[in-house]
């Protein structure tokens, strides 16, 4: 099963930039004058790259959050980072002139980061093991943002409402390599941090007490991991919007597939998170006759049933 999935993943990554609405002649890929050149290097490749690194961040972030919060339902967005980004974007859409629409990236970035800062300030006044309280604060913050978003909706006109809703669905329609760089840097930085703290992560995967007794500074480690995940998730949200489900299901699916402790799955979770989003995007781009299907819809439609299938299969085998 593992090998089959790995082989499939390689095929998906290999064909992803070549499959799309417009068929491409391979020979034209390196001729700057051809349409294919622009299509491939400015649209398809950055898009696949952004999809890969976004999926990787969300999946790895989800795995880390699930370990830190000891809760299988947490995702990088559970603490309100995506709601913060959505709210700030909505504020930008409604209160700024349309000519400043290009600033929406900046707004979602500010929204995501101010959420991280607020969380960080709260976390400083909590005890090391009070991650439950932090989780609750994050959830309360999310609700507060959602409520404020409702007010913004109420104040917006039809066109603005549509723009806000479209943002919440997530979109991988990026143009040019410039969009790829921040996401790629964020993904690799997160990967580096998680690998760097792998021994500490493994101890956290036993119990907080055990990690403490083995000499881990739990509060420091938790904050580093939390910040690394939230910041990289914030970068994702500001480039592609909130894409749900990847952070929740991929860590679980990879764990069930490999049957090893999470600290040994850093690379597989990173890789398959990326592949999963590339695959979902492949479908989103090629399914719709009129326009592409929102990516968030595809991730849920594919991830949900597959997740349930894997869980049922595992339960059947192991009682």
């Amino acid at each position, binding site marked *: 099963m593992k090998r089959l999935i790995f082989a499939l993943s390689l095929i998906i990554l290999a064909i992803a930039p070549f499959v799309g609405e417009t068929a491409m002649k391979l020979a034209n890929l390196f001729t700057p004058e051809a349409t294919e050149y622009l299509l491939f290097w400015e649209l398809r490749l950055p898009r696949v790259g952004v999809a890969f690194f976004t999926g990787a961040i969300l999946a790895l972030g989800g795995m880390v959050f699930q*370990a830190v919060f000891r809760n299988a339902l947490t995702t990088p967005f559970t603490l309100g980072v995506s709601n913060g980004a959505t709210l700030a974007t909505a504020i930008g859409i409604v209160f700024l002139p349309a000519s400043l629409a290009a600033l929406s990236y900046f707004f979602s970035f500010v929204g995501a980061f101010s959420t991280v800062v607020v969380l960080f300030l709260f976390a400083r006044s909590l005890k090391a093991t009070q991650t439950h309280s932090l989780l609750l604060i994050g959830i309360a913050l999310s609700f507060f943002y959602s409520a404020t978003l409702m007010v913004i909706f109420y104040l917006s006109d039809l066109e603005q409402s549509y723009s806000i809703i479209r943002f919440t669905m997530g979109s991988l329609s990026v143009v040019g390599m410039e969009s790829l760089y921040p996401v790629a840097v964020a993904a690799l930085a997160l990967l580096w941090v998680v690998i760097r703290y792998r021994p500490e992560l493994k101890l956290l995967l036993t119990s907080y007490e055990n990690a403490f007794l083995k000499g881990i500074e739990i509060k420091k480690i938790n904050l580093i991991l939390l910040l690394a995940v939230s910041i990289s998730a914030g970068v994702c949200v500001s480039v592609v919007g909130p894409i749900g489900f990847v952070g929740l299901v991929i860590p679980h699916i990879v764990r069930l597939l490999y049957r090893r402790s999470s600290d040994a799955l850093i690379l597989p979770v990173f890789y398959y998170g990326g592949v999963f989003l590339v695959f979902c995007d492949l479908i989103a781009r090629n399914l719709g006759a009129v326009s592409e299907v929102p990516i968030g819809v595809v991730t849920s439609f594919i991830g949900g049933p597959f997740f349930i299938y894997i869980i049922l299969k595992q339960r059947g085998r192991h009682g």
Partner: protein
Amino acid sequence: MKLSVDNLSTPFLKGISFEVHDENAVILGSNGAGKTTLAKALVGLYETSSVLVEGEKLASLGSGRRAQLLNFVPSGLDVFDEYIDAEAFLNLSLLNGSTPDDLETVMARLNITGIRNTPCRCLSSGESQLLLFAGGLLHNARLTIFDEPTANLDSDKKIKLFGMLKEHLGWKIIITHDLNLAYRLGYRILYLREGELVFDGSATDFFEESHFRSLFGESICWVGGHFVVNYG
């Protein structure tokens, strides 16, 4: 190493003060007397400013140094990740000079090599207890506090563990409500009752007939060299 407790008060403990200076001890007390809370305060799991190591506040000790000096072996195994197995758990306890060879030796002595690849969450309570004990030995802190190390074990294993406890070279505090264990260990006894330290002295003094009766009345009998519960 001198570990001192100066007027420690928590919701469960009332003004406890004592010192342990490179010696073994037993913390005795009935259920809910505050034994585990006291132990957790001694290793820093319960944050307090009343515990001092060599005159320095425990809370201000660096985490690495703390792990060298103090360890606590809980009575129950708590592992979050369902795929961490017994060997991986013990590997995480290789501190203060312990080697993978020591791991093999300890596993063999406790006869738990068979559960090496069993996920921690699938272990029985007895197996978990042996695994925790092995982890405590491998961690090899200057002072280790064992919380009810024999509670879930059958008699053979209790005897084996008792022997290994006696042999273990590091300093240790053993929390128990097993009077026989406390008696056989013969260490200094700290007796807790409802959060108060009501006795701190030698095992000989503690088990002296009249003192013992004053604490337990007729509920415990001395039969054939052992304490047994008097069900009436």
